[in-house]
């Protein structure tokens, strides 16, 4: 059974809102996302900046209240919980943030930061709390003497370890990693990714791993979801995405990722133009103005996410839902 199920989730932000609320528009940051995350897997979520992936991640743990849709976590409808029940559930869902400098309170010592969750949920106190925090610090690769230090005394990688320890302190099962390694140097990125994988094995964690970096996502994910302008365009097991991407947007993303192997040739597929404004997304398939394969129908009808086995694609031209012309193999 899926640990997390998201059904038709939407988050619309009102913007503008001129004098007396006239002329208000909405940004459709997340616009009807449906997906599920299995217990113990890592789901990677990729997409360009501004496509709504962080908003989706924050909606799941209700740091942002979704506008519409359902989030079912382990059989409980998260969106329907009141504040007290939500507080209880928060123990099981945690988040690791992108910016290790902004995500730690500069006025708190490391011990307090990591121990706060246990205090809130009364999991431990006094010497026991201290011992458990010490164990956690050791587990994420920090030392015991770091307990009484302030965040500014640490490097970015170490701060991110503190953030991981904070998430683990409440025995979380499900962790949203929101660009958790994007702010780090490449060598440190690898360390943190390895740490996350070790912890996943040890504590049976489920990750929702958000990143714009396909290379990082490939390394850690079991399945990968691709998001464009608030909607999912493709979901598939990681190998399938990298070997057999269907959606033109996924392929464009892949062809833009640099490869460490100079002998491997890639067909460059350079996208024209910018991401359209999520205030006024294009009609039909929101990718059609930038898509080199767009047909007439693409600007008229929004393609549904069609499933074939474990590979789902939202496209009129390619994949299981293709209704026009070309087959995927031709590219």
């Amino acid at each position, binding site marked *: 059974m899926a640990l997390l199920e998201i059904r038709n989730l939407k988050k619309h932000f009102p913007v503008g809102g001129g004098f007396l609320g006239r002329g208000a528009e909405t940004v459709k940051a997340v616009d009807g996302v449906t997906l599920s995350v299995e217990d113990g897997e890592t789901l990677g979520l990729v997409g360009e900046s501004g496509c709504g992936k962080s908003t989706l991640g*924050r909606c799941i*743990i209700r*740091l942002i209240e979704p506008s519409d849709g359902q989030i079912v976590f382990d059989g409980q409808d998260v969106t329907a919980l009141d504040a007290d029940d939500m*507080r*209880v559930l*928060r*123990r099981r*869902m*945690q*988040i690791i*943030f*992108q*910016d290790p400098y*902004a*995500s*730690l*309170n*500069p*006025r*708190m010592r490391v011990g307090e930061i990591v121990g*706060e*969750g246990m205090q*809130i*949920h009364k999991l431990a106190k006094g010497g026991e709390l201290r011992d458990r925090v010490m164990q956690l610090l050791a587990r994420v*690769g920090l*030392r015991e003497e770091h307990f009484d230090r302030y965040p500014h*005394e*640490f*490097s970015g*990688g*170490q701060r991110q370890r503190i*953030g991981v320890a*904070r998430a683990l302190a*409440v025995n979380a099962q499900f962790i949203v990693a929101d660009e958790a390694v994007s702010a780090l140097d490449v*060598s*440190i990125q*690898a*360390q943190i990714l*390895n*740490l996350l994988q*070790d912890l996943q094995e040890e504590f049976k964690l489920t990750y929702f791993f958000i990143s714009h970096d396909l290379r990082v996502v490939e390394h850690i994910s079991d399945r990968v979801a691709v998001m464009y302008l608030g909607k999912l365009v493709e979901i598939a097991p990681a190998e399938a995405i990298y070997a057999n991407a269907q959606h033109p947007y996924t392929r464009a993303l892949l062809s833009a990722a640099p490869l460490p192997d100079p002998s491997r040739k890639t067909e460059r597929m350079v996208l024209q133009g910018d991401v359209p404004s999520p205030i006024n997304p294009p009609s039909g398939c929101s990718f059609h103005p930038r898509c080199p394969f767009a047909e007439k129908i693409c600007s008229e009808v929004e393609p549904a996410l069609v499933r074939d086995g474990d590979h789902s694609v939202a496209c009129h031209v390619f994949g299981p839902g293709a209704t026009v012309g070309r087959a995927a193999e031709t590219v």
Partner: protein
Amino acid sequence: MTNSALTEEAILARPAAQGSRVPRGLRPWLTPKIVLGGGIVLVLVIMGVLAPAISPFDPNRQNLLGAMQAPQWLAGAHFLGTDHVGRDILSRIFYGARISLVIAITVVVISGIVGVGLGAISGYFAGKIDFAIQKLVEVVWAFPPLLLAIAIMAFFGQGLGILIFALVIQRWIPYCRVARGQALSLRSRDFVHAARSLGARNARIVMKHILPNLMQAATVIGTFAMATAIIAEASLSFLGLGVPPSIPTWGGMLADGRAYISTSWWLALFPGLCIFFTVLGINLLGDGMRDIFDPRLKRSGQGMG
């Protein structure tokens, strides 16, 4: 886990070796502004605390036969002379320091608690609560500060408590504005999100994550507010609206001395100098502290110099 890279990280994060006898934490504080301003404030505090012990005379003992004596310096009993009813000016200055300090500190602390508290609530909760508090701020801020204090003193009569109330009623505003602005930006910082995702309630977030991060700004505002509180207290005492006349204050001494300024300059000069140096000292201290707490400001200042 790659251990070698980890230790390298740890080495980079270790603080630099110590190079001087002054404790590392104290060194940034030894700027000319802070040393000078802090020195003046320290002298003031010593004067106020030790006033009963170091005053040569009872500050309220009148001696009409010995009135209007010029400063005798070390030659006579009255170092700074006597006033129009023969009270020892030096003793009154010492006791005046005491009342100035008590009032200034009380006013600064109370208005700090009220202002930072309301500001944090206003900025953190935003929305309607913020709107209500900010409207209150605007209404109070619309009154000229001294005029409002005069009106309150005139209405309620003299008294230490009422004086403090009259000064607090406006002095919490700067705290509130700054605290609100900072709280507004803090509430969307990731560490606040992290606390919320851990299940922290609003009260905990405000107490543990918002307020501690407002303390630096509050300290700086506090020192400046202290200077204006001393001036305001002196102004009200000068106008005869401060504390009861039986308590010696610098402002009251200044008012008494005003009538004799052409003949007996020492009556007004010494309390005036006290107010001047006290405010100067506190402002220097506040300035120095702001340089430390807001390094960006300091750097831009150095760039211009």
